[in-house]
């Protein structure tokens, strides 16, 4: 089980929750289960999202595994110049 922290700007899509507990082996599974629980999160995924696992930010590689006990943050997708 992972305690997934949501940044404030994503919380409205999760009924205001600051964190959610989800059992997931990969980012893909995490996001799928998140949308199952909070359908409004789908729009946020479509707009772009990033997942931080133990401090490393993943924007695209949804096959990345989530180790046991990992720190997981859901962040808005960042843009660069």
């Amino acid at each position, binding site marked *: 089980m992972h305690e997934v*922290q949501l*940044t*404030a*700007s994503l*919380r*409205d899509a999760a009924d*205001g929750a600051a964190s959610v507990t989800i059992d997931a082996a990969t980012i893909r599974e995490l996001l799928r289960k998140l949308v199952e629980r909070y359908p409004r999160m789908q729009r946020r995924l*479509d*707009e772009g999202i990033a997942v*931080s696992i*133990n*401090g*490393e*930010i*993943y*924007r*695209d*590689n949804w096959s*990345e595994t989530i180790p046991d006990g990992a*720190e997981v*943050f859901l*962040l*808005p997708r*960042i*843009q*660069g*110049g």
Partner: protein
Amino acid sequence: MAHDKHFTNQEFKVVGTRVPRPDGVDKVTGRARYGADAFAPGQLVGAILRSPHAHAKIRKIDASKAEKLKGVKAVVTSADLPDLTNGRRDMLDILENCMARGRALYDGHAVAAVAAIDAETARKALKLIKVDYEVLPHVTDVDEAMKPGAPIVQPWVRTAGVDPAPTKASNVSQISTFGHGDVEAGFAEAHVIVERSYKTEQTHQGYIEPHACLASVNPDGTGELWVTTQGHFVFRNVCASLLGMEVAKLKVTSSEIGGGFGGKTHVWIEPVALALSRKANRPVKLVMTRDEVFRATGPTCSTSVDVKIGATRDGIITAATATLRYQDGAFPAIWGMLGAMTSFACYDLKNVKSVGYDVLVNRPKVAAYRAPSAPMAAFGVESTIDQLAAEIGMDPVEFRIKNAAKEGTRASYGPTYGPIGIGPTLQAAKNHPHMKAPLGRNQGRGMACGFWFNFGGQTCVDLNIGVDGTVNLTVGTVDVGGSRASMALIAAEELGIPYERVRCNVADTVSLGHNDMTEGSRGTFSSGMATVFAARNAIEVLRERAARTWDIDVSKVEWQDGKAVAMGSEHSNLSSLSIEELAAASPNTGGPIAGHNEVVADGAGVSFATHICDVEVDPETGKTRVIRYTVIQDAGKAIHPDYVEGQFQGGAAQGIGWALNEEYVYGDDGRLQNPGFLDYRIPVCSDLPFIDTQILEIPNPNHPYGVRGVGETSIVPPLAAIANAVSNAVGVRMTHIPMSPPRILKAIKAHRAESEAAA
């Protein structure tokens, strides 16, 4: 090993050397072909009619006279760019920005376009288009736009990030909050608190090459686009989607690029050129004037920022807050959010809170500008940090070192850092001779830190070995700063051959798989990673070919210094086979030899920098001269040190212009007053000192060579470093960027008046 993304501390032979860039000769001889340098048989000239109003309802567009003008082949309006976005508001915003749909949202917003046989006819045609405007109230200032009763820029926008969700339209499109701990408790522990407000004005990336493209759409639904861009694959996808074309049928070729810095990550004129070409059934070339570049492409935000930081007398920060208001132009974006995320990222803070406001105004859509949003946040935070250090009587470098983030620090935007370079850049600054050099009269020294995320993304590389053993490396990331040389170095390193035997090219969209933009400092990080893997794949093929030639098992073949070597005493009579020999024999050993790789290059690793700056301010005129500047930044691994240093210097140079002179000036009528390089002054060579650099190499654990992106972080500290230097020189805290001569004089005079009043 072959596809292991992790850093392996490999020893290098050619990586890290300063070889000539492959595009250098073309660029210095004028052969390089930029956006405006493409020609097609029968091409027309495109031109765009732009709104003179900051905000207006478009009641009617009458193009009948223009259409009848001899030589005019097509006129398009929003009616020719129907909404095919299927409910995707972000895509509709892009379309609406390219061509106004019922309302002009800023001075310079496109309302119609023509394609004609020559520029003169096109200009005449624009004058014949009659637009019936109903001028609406406008707002261009970020603070004014947030006030109750301000003109609403986008009636459909409801503020996101607040609970309960609002029901009324607002110019605040999003509020983003980051942080942890209890800031009120933290401030209660502080012995000293500094609280200040800051403003920065809007600036443009100032790339020398204007936006330009050549579009050609055929009746069979195929099309081609030659364009100056930071990402032709993304341009292809966006343009195809907006115009209802199939992605595979639109070929996009990126020209050489005369600067982008984030401004060429968005489409502006390209969908319009394609629409004109489709309607005229002829190729259409569309080149922006400088006036258009300023008025109708994507500058960075103007901002209004409040910062409050408290610390104990022994120099430990106990709490920090920032409120950051960023204007996004006329379309919702995430720039305020990024300001909030980056603001305190350099520091190890127990209690921190940052709130970003994304605010709509009647100005052009804001685009990324090199580490977008971070420089303005750093200006506020690093200025306040400097004042706090002075208040508690601590050296500003020591104060920062004491509070710097490190491995294990929880970043202010959430996650916990791995190995990072802020501490080492500060230590290097502390030990740098620049910090100890004496200062003269009217001179001041400042320093500041900066942070940027960096990211990777989708990347695809082909490596083909020719019959003579030379190598064509084909990448899809646009070369904005010397990356072709870096990629060739990496391929040469892996293959064990001289750099000169590798030629790196940027492919068009029909020749290679999708590549994300060159943005987020990702070019060398991600294409470099894909090049490592593609070269290793090619080496596997080379080993197989050698094994086949020798009729031995491939497990007995190793690749050493550009040659296949048969291992084991039983094969000691076999001479090694060079890449040239294997390539020459390839027709009879299995055909062409190549390596490919497709990768999602995540794990780019965050980046930090520390800058030191000396200035001299003329107290009579307020003119500031930067007399010495030093950039210290972590590159992870500098593949080609010249181009790493070039990125460091380029960011600093742009930051100097931003800090001292550059500024969008809007009149009360909402029109941009200075859309040209005469009135919008970017630095020229005589404005700049030699910018000294120091590359630190703290390996990124998520790249085989340890590479971190370097392209953006260098623009983050300059605003603050220069503001701290100027403030120290004149004895007045400067809180408004740019610190132009009138602004400095005003601050000096106000300070004198205050001092005299107090006396």
